[in-house]
């Protein structure tokens, strides 16, 4: 478990990290290191330089910014999972964060780091998608916002440019209710998702006025289940089953050690239904 030799730089500020990234193409940014370090030890990834943003002060906040909740780049899964603000405005994200990894990983790994890593079976990307989270990226030209729906491009690939750092995750306060549910590889909610779904619903007089549903663990990337969303919009409080029936539209189901294509397709429907029902139940 020895990585190839690399340079290590502890950035004192985001500006410094962004400059270093621009000056060293191929460098990797590290926050909690829970995904990067194992990949380097296995030599699946051998960057020439690691830029550690984990020591920059003031980036671990979760604050109320009026129309959104701002989650700093260094907020840990444990912080997000236990945040009253996140619980109030995006319960699905709090659940997803609290079921990520194990206690050590949750105490060390960061939400922003996990989103940037874009693992196809990670929990928080599904919640970020369903809640319409906004990613704030900073590069040499300044900052830009990327909608969650545009952020997860492919397996382990996000919309971040190689010279950008994910500096903040914004959770819009758009009302409604949300939930995340999954089957973990160890059963229950433990370990990576064999399949998981996050749902956000906004009810208006017994009807679904707006909603978003996202899947993880099933296909090539965490993604919105557009068909299920279309089915649910405008339906009543019993719309979960109809949404589940269309869970797989536009999703390429992948078989792995934890499930056949048939089983994962089945689970996708089960968890879309459960997530929607739980979101509606509040």
């Amino acid at each position, binding site marked *: 478990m*020895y990585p190839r030799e690399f340079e290590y730089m502890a950035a004192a500020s985001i500006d410094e990290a962004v400059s270093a990234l621009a000056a060293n193409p191929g460098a990797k940014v590290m926050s909690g290191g829970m995904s990067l370090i194992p990949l380097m030890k296995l030599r699946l990834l051998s960057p020439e330089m690691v830029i550690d943003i984990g020591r920059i002060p003031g980036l671990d906040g979760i604050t109320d910014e009026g129309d959104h909740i701002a989650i700093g780049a260094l907020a840990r899964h444990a912080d997000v999972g236990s945040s009253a603000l996140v619980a109030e405005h995006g319960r699905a994200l709090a659940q997803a964060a609290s079921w990520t990894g194990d206690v050590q990983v949750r105490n060390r790994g960061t939400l922003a780091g996990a989103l940037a890593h874009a693992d196809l079976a990670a929990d928080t990307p599904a919640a970020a998608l369903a809640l319409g989270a906004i990613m704030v990226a900073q590069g040499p030209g300044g900052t830009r916002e990327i909608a969650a729906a545009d952020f997860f491009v492919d397996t382990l690939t996000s919309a971040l440019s190689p010279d950008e750092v994910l500096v903040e995750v914004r959770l819009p306060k758009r009302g409604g209710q949300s939930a995340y549910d999954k089957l973990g590889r160890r*059963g229950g909610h433990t370990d990576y998702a064999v399949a998981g779904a996050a749902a956000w619903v906004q009810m208006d007089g017994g009807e679904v006025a707006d909603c978003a549903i996202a899947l993880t663990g099933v296909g090539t990337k965490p993604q919105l289940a557009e068909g299920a969303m279309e089915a649910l919009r405008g339906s009543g409080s019993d719309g979960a089953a109809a949404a589940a029936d269309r869970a797989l539209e536009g999703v390429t189901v992948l078989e792995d*050690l934890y*499930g056949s294509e048939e*089983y994962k397709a089945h689970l996708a429907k089960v968890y879309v239904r459960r997530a929607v029902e739980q979101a509606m139940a509040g």
Partner: protein
Amino acid sequence: MSTTSVMGGVVKRREDPALIRGTGLYVDDVKLPGMLHVGFVRSPYAHARIDSVDTSAAASMEGVVAVYTADDVRHLGPLLAQVPIGKLRPLLADGDVKHSGQAVAMVVATSPGRARDAVDAVDVDYEPLPAIVDLKEAAADGARVHDELDSNIIHTWTYHDYWDALDLEDPRPKIEEAKQRDDVVVVSQEMINQRLIPVAIEPRSVVAQWNDGYQRFTVQSSSQVPHALSGAISKTFGLAANAVRVIAPEVGGGFGAKLNVYADEMLVCFAAQQTGRPVKFTETRRESANSTIQGRGWVGTATLIGTSDGEILGYELHALADMGAYTQNFTVAIPLLGLWVASGQYTFPTSWVVDCVTTHTMTTDAYRGAGRPEAIYYLERIIDMYAREIGMDPIEVREKNYWQSDQFPAVMGCGFALDSGDYHGSTAKLKEVAGYDALRAMQESARAEGRHIGIGMSSYVEVCGFGPAVLEDIGFSWTSYGLPSSFNGSGLVRVNPDGTATVIIGTGPSGQGHETTWAQIVSDGLGLPVEQIVVRHGDTAESPMGIGTFGSRSIAVDGAATYEATARVRARAAKIAAHLLEAAAEDLVFEDGGAHVAGSPDSSVTWTEIAKVAYQAHKGPEGMESGLEESVTFTPPNATWPFGSHLAVVEVDDTTGDVKLLDYFAADDCGNVINPMIVAGQVHGGIAQGVGQALFEDAVYDADGNLLTGSLVDYIIPTAGDLPSFHTARTVTPTDVNPLGVKGIGEAGTIASAQTIVNAVVDALAPLGVKHIDMPLRPKRVWQAIQDAKGA
């Protein structure tokens, strides 16, 4: 606070402060001046011809001291094995590779990172060849892993043939006769007991030093068997036994994987000898997965014949057991351990055939339970299926077929005698602690609500305390390593001149708590507080001849030797105390740190006073020999046969196949108990590993022989968070094969638990028509079984 008379009492583990606070010394902590580090070039193919190995680029890298291939080490011969049936492993691959992860070349460099870099620079030209991974394909006529062997079936263990010599009755006619009866039920099921990867927290690590002046090795290794390793090194390098000192310092878990002797241990010695510098190898987790031995790996069909009212008339098993590519230490002998417990707690005739099959995979060998979990799995699964078939409570069926407590010692069909037992009492205890009737009532009402609750039970017999002298006749010994043919136990007890005691034993802990348990034995025998006793182990230079810690044998064998040595020291001390107190030795009582005359506590002498005299012969009784030390070697007349029953309660989500283990109960009988907390700890750990096999763990090779589960991301081991709090209970049926009346408890939990869980899950899903699911019971398999049952 001083503690004496502590046998049977909870004494907190004395080793834990060091282990928890990080002051224990593990092999990888060892840093020696000038030490070099090893990296291995490992085959990415399960089967390939090696056309060339080009080490020149690696050898010229900065920090690389040497690169070795088969050409350099061929003269040392293959890795020695204790039961050398099948193909022995070349130290480095010689012309071909037979499993993925096989070591092809060894790089020696100034740091582990440099060694790892240089490994990538070694250019091996492989010609990939087809791999045989599937056990049935491997066992088919004409299949060959090694051209020089006649068949991939390298040995067959049977009940009948093997024991002809013992003049035992062949059970097969009885079983055949039972099958012909028209009033019997016959149940038969093919089942897989999947391959597992032992996962110790501490990976294996070895450091070797060669002293060219003395021509001696000093080797530190994370080993369960330092004496065996010492013997293997001395044999491999043509040295006398006393020229190799092996030290096993703290060992962070072994589970049988460190009961093996490894090629890398020989190779590190070779490199130390060649370079004249200390050399270390510490395996990575990935290397551990594919180059440390694996366990289990059986596919077999169990058949049970019984009447419709629960009388079992016969049991048969025919299984294929995966040996992997090369034979190591006990590889081929592992199923034999299963054979000895094949009939479990039952009286019925048993016929057992297990073929040992070679495949293009890593070697298998002893993994916690070693053959016995496999044997008990097949037996206890098929009994459950039979109970369901005849509509009888599965516990009642078992009770109907147990040996009665007045039948011990009970000679089994395999020829061994069960030493002592009370199987009905043990099962009664389990039912009591679990509240069995209430659980069944709860299950009934849960089912009415549409919930799938299952209750599973398994009984077991384990065989441990190796072992009796007869074992050497059937391949269990260390003679290949030049060590004693008998599995003796040893213990040395020394009262030091200051009145404290030092105990040196031939086995050492890899987590079992020897330093506490042995101190209790000696404390009890000498009346000396536990705090005054130090237990030493694991250094072949100072400890008496030791066989090692495996097969739940330490306490029953080395513990018995220590008990006897303690008694002899006490007898010698009694003569001194009697002299000092002007009393009769037989009137003395040893307690509270000294001896006193029975009934006269004031007429006393402390151990410090006794010890002072013991080392000055002229002050002692006439004819006294100086010193106060005794060393005993103990050979038991029989193995010990612990037993018990476990019960699990599960709930299954029939929509997803997710299994939740709700509750777990264990009633174990390991004879007398020295430290109940340590015994419970062993049971807890054992259950966790059985649950791991039942629900999570699976060493998966693809059809080309690639290990797909080589990291802990995909090889899922249970954690505390995955498990409920276990309820452990005990009955006590002492053995008479050793003076302590103890039997051993290290493997009981593992042997008992996997099928307990499977029985519970199948019980939960029986109303849906599910009859069997192969382990691990991952949700996908459980769900698939439900779909298949619906379709049937």
